[in-house]
Each structure stands twice: as C-alpha cells, then as structure tokens.
C-alpha cells in the first residue's frame, strides 16, 4: 500500500509542475533532432511531428533515448487533405512515457512510400506488413512486403481500410446479398 501512495503523491507533484519530467525529455530529444517538432500532451504522453524522410534518424534518436518498445504503427487516412498520417507509437519503460511520432506522406498509392525501420525496431516488420495490407503504404527495404498477410487473395490490392473504399457496394458484389427486408435500400441507417 505504501508504494502505491508514494506513487500517487509523485503524480500530483508532477501535474503541479506542469509535467516537468516530460518537458525535459522532449527538450532532450529535440536538441538531438532539431528537424522535429515536439510537445507534451499530458502526463506520460508526448508527441513529435517529423518530416517523413527523417523518420529513420528520429527513431534512432528515440532508441538512444531509451524508447525500447514500439507499440504500433497506425495509419490515419485524411481524405480531405489527401494525406496519410503515420503514427509510430513508442513506449519508454525507463521514462514511463508514451510517445507518438507523427509523420505525413501523400495518399496516392504510388507515392505512399516510407523507408522501413525494421533494422531499428525489428518488430516494425510486422506492423509495416499490416499497414501495407490495409492502406497500401509501401515500406522500402522490408522484404516481407509482398508476403501474404491477413487479407485473403480477393482483397489484396484493394486496401480496404482506405476511406474511399466503398465497403457496402463491395460486400453486395462479393457476397451477392441484398438487404433482407428491403431490396431498394442501399444507404446506411446508422
């Protein structure tokens, strides 16, 4: 019980000082990587924005600064801006901080290319395959890019998680179903 209370006290102190620890960490990383923008989101959450071509340098810097785990590579498809946002989610066990490394690349399939970070974080290979399968981001240098991943043959190359993928029309074509109640209906109720 004692330990828990101590930790709670520590938390309160830190929030009082406006997340001093996180500020210092962001400063430390930004000194080494001046091309990036960084900010503290809240306690234990920091965020960086990095240009796409410097992502490898930046992740190397993060690894040197004790960000040991890569949790996920999330692709967010911003249809209006015509951009993919790649969010590398990192966790540092030493600093107990979650860092989002955000970068933007164009959305067109032939331009959506990124350098792989497989040699820095080996687990990234899996995440990159995931991102490639669902969004069509090609990671150069990852040999397993062409290897079959979750999707079946029929959906390969369709990149079904992109925002402009018309799922209902595709489902109707693929499974030859009409709505059970009303055959004229083709809009989502929800």
């Amino acid at each position, binding site marked *: 019980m004692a330990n828990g209370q101590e930790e709670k006290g520590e938390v309160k102190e830190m929030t009082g000082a406006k997340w001093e620890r996180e500020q210092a960490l962001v400063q430390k990383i930004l000194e080494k990587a001046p091309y990036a923008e960084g900010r503290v989101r809240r306690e234990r959450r920091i965020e960086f924005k990095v240009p796409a071509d410097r992502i490898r340098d930046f992740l190397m810097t993060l690894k040197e600064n004790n960000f040991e785990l890569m949790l996920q590579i999330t692709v967010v498809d911003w249809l209006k801006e015509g951009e993919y946002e790649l969010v590398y989610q990192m966790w540092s066990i030493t600093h107990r901080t979650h860092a989002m490394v955000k970068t933007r690349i164009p959305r067109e399939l032939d331009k959506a290319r990124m350098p792989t970070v497989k040699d820095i974080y080996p687990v990234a290979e899996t995440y990159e395959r995931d991102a490639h399968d669902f969004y069509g981001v090609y990671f150069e240098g990852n040999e397993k890019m062409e290897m079959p991943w979750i999707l*079946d*043959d029929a959906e390969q190359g369709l990149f*079904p998680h992109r925002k402009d993928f018309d799922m209902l029309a595709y*489902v109707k074509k693929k*499974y*030859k179903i009409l709505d059970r109640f009303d055959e004229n209906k083709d809009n989502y109720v929800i």
Partner: protein
Amino acid sequence: MVDWRLFEPLFEFARKRSLWIVAFCTGCGGIEMPPLMTSRYDLERFGMMPNPAPRMADLFLITGYVTPKTLKRIIITYEMQPDPKYVLAHGSCPLNGGIYWDAYNAIKHLDRYIPVDVVIAGCMPRPEAVMDGIKKLMEMIENGTADGWKRYRENYEWYKKNQDELFGEGWREREARRWIPWLMDKKKKEK
C-alpha cells in the same frame, strides 16, 4: 448380399449417440466450447467429444462468424469428413452476417457454401442453447431429416459454383501452393 437399408434405424440410433465433433473453433463461439466439453456442462455424457482429426468426426460446429479464409478450410475439412456428417451453426453470424453484415471479410449466408442442418440464435449462444441445438440435431438424425450431407452430394455443382465464385477458380491448388515459395530458401527472392 445383405440389404443394409434394413439396419438403417440401428445405424441412426448409433450415430445419434456418438457424435464426434471436429475440433475447429471457427469464430468467437470457440470460447464457449471448452466449458461445454469440460466438467461443468460435460458433453461427454451424450457420447460427444472433440476430435482432432476430421476423418473420424461427424459433427461440425460452426462457432460464430466465418471469414472467407476460414471458409476455405471449413470446406476442405468438411469434405474430409466421412458421410454422414452434420453441421450446426452457432449464433447470428452464419445466418445473416450478424454484426458483420457490412464487413468485407465475413460470410453472410453460410448455407450457400456448405449445407447447415441446425441454427441456434444468440451472440454468443449459451452452452445450454448449444446443447439444445445438439438435442434437436439428435432428433433430426432419428427422423432422418438431418440430410445436409445428402444435399451437399446431390447439389455439389451448385455449392461448388458458389464457392468458386467467392474464391476464384482453382482456389484449392492455389491455397496448397501459396507458401511454398516462402518456405524454400533459394526461390524466396523470385517472388
């Protein structure tokens, strides 16, 4: 020459009391299988048990939604089973898509691809409901109305057409060879 049809009631009686299940958890309902098989609900009282090999199994439990990738394996496994064989579909998803009614990767009407004998409602169905479905299946076997395997044999062309439409022709061969280039050490770089 013995006329085996005379012994059919006896066979049905025996079939009803020793339904072996293919151990294939095809969907989320797989989580309710262990409670069913183990001490609490104990399906072994009915002479049922999960069997690792489809060659010796009679009953196929489709536990929940079915994705096309799984459906390929389901079809292969189903065809491996000896006749007579029965299929019990769990929950809403095999019937009409369930919550995945608009998902690109979930089968909507399972009956188009393999014949299903009994459906039970629920998401997911309680073990009691599954047992009720099995009881119903036993009754059907006794009446001789559980004829999914006959339907599959008679309408094989139709089922095969639907399967081929979904997966593309020659999916069995493609599936069998899919991983060979990735397993070979030399050929890996070709593709």
